[in-house]
């Protein structure tokens, strides 16, 4: 019952969360575009996933792509891993955290018992 409530809440909350994320990212990129100079520190970053099914991987990959500032470049299913091109990766831990946060939200919706605990937050360079 709590799971159901939690998922319902997440489903309702998620668009706002994601929309906010998109708007903020858009503004950041737009600022870069519209003003001289750039704060960008681009990189291709490897992101291990907790997602397991094709649907989960696809959803997270697409959400990343739709967020201005990040783009999914490559996918591996075993183990599930994404390679992402990020514009603002100067603080890589924060960068990863934002993505994992989004993943957790998603898995919270797709899985009956919520997102699994993240064991390995360190990402190999």
């Amino acid at each position, binding site marked *: 019952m709590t799971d159901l409530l939690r998922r319902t809440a997440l489903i309702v909350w998620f668009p706002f969360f994601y929309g906010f994320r998109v708007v903020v990212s858009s503004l950041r990129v737009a600022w870069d575009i519209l003003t001289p100079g750039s704060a960008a520190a681009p990189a291709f970053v490897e992101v291990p996933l907790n997602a397991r099914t094709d649907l989960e991987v696809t959803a997270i990959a697409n959400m990343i792509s739709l967020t201005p500032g990040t783009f999914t470049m490559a996918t591996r299913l*075993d183990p599930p891993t994404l390679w992402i091109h990020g514009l603002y990766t100067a603080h890589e831990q924060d960068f990863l955290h934002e993505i994992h946060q989004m993943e957790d939200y998603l898995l919270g919706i797709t899985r009956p018992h919520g997102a699994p605990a993240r064991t390995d937050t360190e990402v190999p360079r």
Partner: protein
Amino acid sequence: MLLLLLLALLTVITVFSFVIARFAGRATGWPLAAMLALLTLLVLVRGPDLWNGGPALEASVPWMPSLGVGLNLRMDGLAWLFCVLVLGVGALVMAYSARYFPPGRRTGFYTLMSAFALAMTGLVLADDLVLLFVFWELTTICSFYLIGLSGPAAARPAVRTFLLTALGGLALLAAVVLLWVRTGTTRISVILDDPTWTQDTGFATLVAALVVVAVFTKSAQFPFHYWLPDAMAASTPVSAYLHAAAMVKAGVYLAMRFSPAFADNAFWGTTLIVFGLTTALIGALFALRRHDLKELTAYSTVSQLGFLIAVIGVGTPQALIAAAAHTLAHALFKVTLFMAVGVIDNRTGTRDLRRLGGLARTMPVTAAVTALAALSMAGVPPLLGFVSKENVFEALLHTTHQPWIGPFAAIAAVLAAALTVAYSFRFVYGTFWGAQRRDPATERPREAGALLLFAPVVTASAGLILGLSVPLLDPMIERAAADATHADAEAHLALWHGLNPALGMSALALILGALLIRVSSAGERLAERRFPPVRGTAVFERIHSVVIALGVRVGDPTRTDAPTRHLAVPFVLIIVFASVMAVVGPGHGPPAGPTSRALDWLPLVLITAAVLTAVVTRSRMAALALIGLSGFATAVWFVFLGAIDVALTQLLVEILTVVVAVLVLRRLPTEFHRARPSRAVATAAIAIPAGVAAGAGAYFLTGRREPSAVSEHLLENAVQDTGGTNVVNTVLVDYRALDTLGELTVLGVAGLIIIAVLHSAGLTAMGGTRPSASHTNPIWDADDNTVIMRTVARVLIPLLMVWSVYLLMRGHNAPGGGFIAGLVGGSAFALAYLSASSASVARIRLAYPAIIAAGILVALVCGLLGFADGSFLRPLHADIALPWGGHYHFTTALVFDVGVYLTVVGVMLTALNQLGLPKGPGPEADEQDVPESIRHESATGGTR
């Protein structure tokens, strides 16, 4: 009746000879000779009636009655004379041939000789200009074949002869048509009495000129004389018949036939006399200088024909009498000589005077026969040739056309006659009495058999007998000349006319000839000299090759497979057309309403941007994308113009074009070919005016009238006519379903030909950009990396399918319909193809050609059902009661649309599957990269 019978029998004989010659071999000549002799007899017995002033025989069978052209035959005295010659000589030549050839099949020879006899008889009997022309050309064709029968070496002479005589034939055709158009009839007998001849001298002269060309080419007159010796490549019987007695006489006949028309025409008379005598002279001169007996005889023929033409040119009844008599005489002695040459050749294996001599001892009969004929030719009494030649002299002396012609004619005639004497002597003496210079190989020839000698003996003796009894010929010659002049003629042929200028000329010719013989050794040496510097055949070949060179030049500009050159010309034509219209074209009314809105500039700007950039970019991909943009902008235009269905279709087509283009572009280099700046300028110089022309056409020729009647009918009646509210769709599936059926077929065929061409030619190997990331890079792996696409496609594909069915169903009433729906459905397959992780997975294992065919078949069957209501593609309607109440309006137009749908889907599948293959040709030929036909292409390449 006799006339038709003659032609019918000759046709039968021709067919008969074709059949019989396969079994009888050379002996076919005997029955043919007999049959021709019988026909000669049939004609001969009609003679006395004609001589006694009986009417000409006539017969007529319609052929092209609407043109007034028929098998109109007429035998007057002139035709009778020639008819007897043609058939009689034909019979003798056939008899000769039966022994002349070595044993073996002669099917072609006998058939063609019979056909020739038919053609020649038809020619002289024709009383219809067109018919005359037909037979005239038939003799040419027969001659061509008969010469060619003599093997490869004769091929070129045959062609030369054919072309030259065909030239004359065309002149005759022009004359025929001119006369026909002018007089409104093709009846020769009527035309010759037409007042035009005297009333319109210009016209008469034009026709005369054309007839002259015909006559001169056929009768080997200068400057066309050279074909006759050239044609001696033919076998001897052919030479004897065609090139001595019959075909060359066709020209003489024609000239005689047209004499009444040109009696008062100065051009006609002068030309005939001048050129005839020139021919007589140079023919005789050349004859004197030949070593080959056959060539000598041929030139002698040329020369004698010159006499004939000249005397016809005089045009008086007396002249025509001479012509008729000399025609007969010449036929007899010339046939004899040719046959004698054949016999000599047959016995000794050579015709070269330098290798012959003293044959009189071993071949007395041949010698006697030849001597008789040669004496007749030389004009020695008491032979027929003497009488006829004297008449020719007499007539020439009385030329009336120009004052200077008489003396000229007299001198030329005497000189030519003297030369004739000389070469006649040279022929006979050199062969039969001169020093024996035979090769051992040809030593001791034996006299030919009686059967071979039969024909020449007959003709030679005829020359003697008729010479001795020449007055007997009077009525016959009289009638012939009368019919040739349409005036009374009185003939008094005799060996002795008393002392008159003609006799003097004869004597002078004989004396001069004798003198020439005395210096014959000089003649021999003369023969070695290269004279004249130009040979007729060389001139012909030169003209021939000039024409061919001109042809090569003319063909050069088009001799390229590069489309550009073939495409530029139409564009230039359009520009020219538009420019002319801009200058001389009509004015235009005012526009029927506002022609632009502010928003219109949006698609216009987009299109301009797209076009400008597409033109300048060298990147194929950029060009493709930009063309796509122009398509989208065009779709915006369609939206602006209230054409939603069109816009939808345009969009779908644009996208699918891109999809297919991508399949192709990845096989090609990344960039377009580099072009020189000059080319860009030249192209722009065509492109910009073309654009201006198109824009101007669009502006001035459209939008200036009120809505059309058909448009108003459609908008008013569509619902009640068809039950549909989307008028565009009702036009497609109801009113103009035939267009749609055609369009559907076009699309389906496109699918089929894509398969067909790839099956036979294969695809270009993959080119374009190759991936540079290596296989170990995680981005390489196709299975893992396509998971996103595949997952999304799994959702999208069903959506597309549902949407496409929805569009199909609603099409009659709202934007949609079979095509749009089919394209959406096709997109679903395209998506499946694109999102698959490998080409082999992507392959759609549906029988797509069958889907195409089924689609077309559905539409067709739907159309055929319409016959139930009276017409193909007539939609049938039914209101189906629904179980929950109400009615569903069903129309077969919907079924038609299903056919459309299937076809579209089938074609999309085809394109994806065929072009989407990783490499190589069609599925059946997967194992080989390049099909065999390509590899061996150079072997069958053909043109440059």
